């Protein structure tokens, strides 16, 4: 096992972490305004696909990132307006969005590129690795964090930005108010719908970044359903982090390591079918350990409440139907 924990492990953990971290930040923002965003998985997949599309047709990675952010924003419109102004139920909307993302990308892949399954092409420009010399010269840390994409460094900055925005800025207070006490916020003249719509749409650009990092960050390739559960893991990170950006970020570090270790074990000869499940098992175990008995009573997070009442809402439709 010597040399198991080497700089490469950390670098690959960082690489694995970035898409999840960006998605988790979006999840944190949505949860804070009281929207249980289960569509992270689908949003990320749309981001992956349109990053490749944008990169291919514009010939630049930046074009890919821009296309991904635009596409995820458009894709998120049904959630932003559906769960607010139209008073729809976020859970079925999100479930439908995830399946729509899966179907739409699998449909557009052969239509646009004439291949199915996986698409890679030299014309898809990958995100460049940033290798500033000054960073490399910092002992230990320099080697560990050196040579990542700009999106990765941006994602670390965004943790601080989101935390600052939520807890140190007036707008953050309003956002949290909208999530915790929408009625009170409304009384104070804050438009709950407007804040929710803006938050959901702005956070969706993070998923554009996340998807771009996933498809253009390491190898420039798109394959069907390549997000493969990362959006759900991000959602778990939000839950484990109790909707705090920093704690959610820490949970992402854990998942990044789980991913890197699974890759490493695979390199050591373990079958990939077994190593692939490591992140999910770690996720489930982390949830089981961290979630003590019945946390969802008083003073719990919006996300727990949303999750536990989610199905009730679907059923309420049935109730209102019959009583009309």
């Amino acid at each position, binding site marked *: 096992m010597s040399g198991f924990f080497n700089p490469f492990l950390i670098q690959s953990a960082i690489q694995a972490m970035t898409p999840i971290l960006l998605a988790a930040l979006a999840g944190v923002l949505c949860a804070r305004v009281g929207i249980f965003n289960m569509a992270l998985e689908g949003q990320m997949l749309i981001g992956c696909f349109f990053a490749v599309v944008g990169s291919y047709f514009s010939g630049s990675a930046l074009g890919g990132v821009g296309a991904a952010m635009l596409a995820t924003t458009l894709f998120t419109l049904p959630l932003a307006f559906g769960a607010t102004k139209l008073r729809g139920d976020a859970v079925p909307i999100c*479930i*439908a969005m995830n399946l729509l993302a899966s179907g739409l990308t699998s449909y557009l892949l052969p239509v646009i590129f004439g291949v*199915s399954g996986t698409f890679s092409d030299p014309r898809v420009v990958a995100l460049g690795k940033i290798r500033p010399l000054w960073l490399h010269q910092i002992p230990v840390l320099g080697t560990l964090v050196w040579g990542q994409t700009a999106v990765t460094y941006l994602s670390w900055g965004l943790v601080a930005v989101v935390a600052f925005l939520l807890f140190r800025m007036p707008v953050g207070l309003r956002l949290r108010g909208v999530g915790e006490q929408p009625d009170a916020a409304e009384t104070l003249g804050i438009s709950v719908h407007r804040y929710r719509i803006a938050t959901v749409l702005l956070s969706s650009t993070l998923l554009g970044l996340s998807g771009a990092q996933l498809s253009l960050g390491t190898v420039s390739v798109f394959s069907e359903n390549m997000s493969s559960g990362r959006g759900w893991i991000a959602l778990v990170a939000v839950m484990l982090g109790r909707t705090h950006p920093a704690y959610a970020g820490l949970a992402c570090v854990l998942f990044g390591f789980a991913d890197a270790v699974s890759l490493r074990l695979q390199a050591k000869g373990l079958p990939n079918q077994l190593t692939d499940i490591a992140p999910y*098992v770690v996720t489930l175990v982390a949830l089981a350990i961290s979630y003590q008995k019945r946390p969802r009573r008083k003073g719990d997070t919006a996300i727990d409440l949303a999750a536990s009442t989610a199905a009730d809402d679907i059923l309420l439709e*049935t109730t209102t139907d019959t009583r009309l």
Partner: protein
Amino acid sequence: MKNDAVATPSVMRRWRLPPVAVAILGGVLVGGAILVLTGADPFATYRAMIAGALWPANLPDTLNWAVPVIGMTLVAALPLRAGLLNLGGDGQMIIGAMVAALVPLYCPGPAVVVVPLTMLLAMTASGLYAMLAAWGEISRGIPMLISSLLLGYPAAGLTSYLVTFPLRDTSTGLAQTRMIPPGMRLPVLAGPLNIGVLLIALVAVIAIYVDRQTVAGYEVRMRGLNARFAAYGGIDLDRQAYRIMFASGAIAGLVGTIIVLGSYFRFINYALLAQGYGPTGFMAALLSGGELVGAVIAGLFFAALQIGGVAMQRETEVPRVLTMVLQAMIILFLALRTGLRKTAP
């Protein structure tokens, strides 16, 4: 005369149909827009799809495809009826499928004994796996929609490992188990249809009967309407959740068994997951709002849509995954539409 108006289907359908019809129309329109944008002829495409689904010669295929779809619809609809979300149907299905592929191979005996035993074991295994998600919610407080979904990944990885390495049929180049002996396969009724269609029909009838006519079914509905009230009325919610999830998982296991013993005759790596039975079933259940008769109809509808999609791909070269887009759009419209209705009571 039944005293609970909640389950009376005529009342339900009268109020349910318009939003569903609007949602389907919306899905079809958006699908048409996507076709136009991607350079296909929407009319020709839809014509090929409808002809493929309704062409009499294809009806047995549609019915055969509907067997797992309706099965997975029930898997999602039973918990939904009680206000629980089981998003892990696919994972539970492949656990059952794996068991079903192994028991006939390694447990010799007369088919009359082995086949029912296989079903029983597969259903038990899947049911227990589904209960794991219920355990997560009850004893650890993990929302079930998260745990059931995440549990699908280890199930997929584990079965994939088993079929790639220790249990692989080394005489073929593919990751699959050895072929199940002919005597252990499900009897064929006619054409592509095997006895599985009767089994799923039986399960649907039992589920609907339990839902409508028994105390347990009433308690499930009551929980769905108001869990707190149900608990106040003396229902042990935890116990009930375990039971519902076991039943849901067991049906998923039966679906896996029917596919393995009736169509593939072996466990083929990822073959079951690639069909999207679980997501389709979940969407059909959402389309019906958990109401079981509606769920069966919705399952049939989506199965017809997908068989139509196969014909469409053959005739027009439009990828058949378009049907997945249509299904998702229909559910999306429904979710938005039911929302709209709420604003104007």
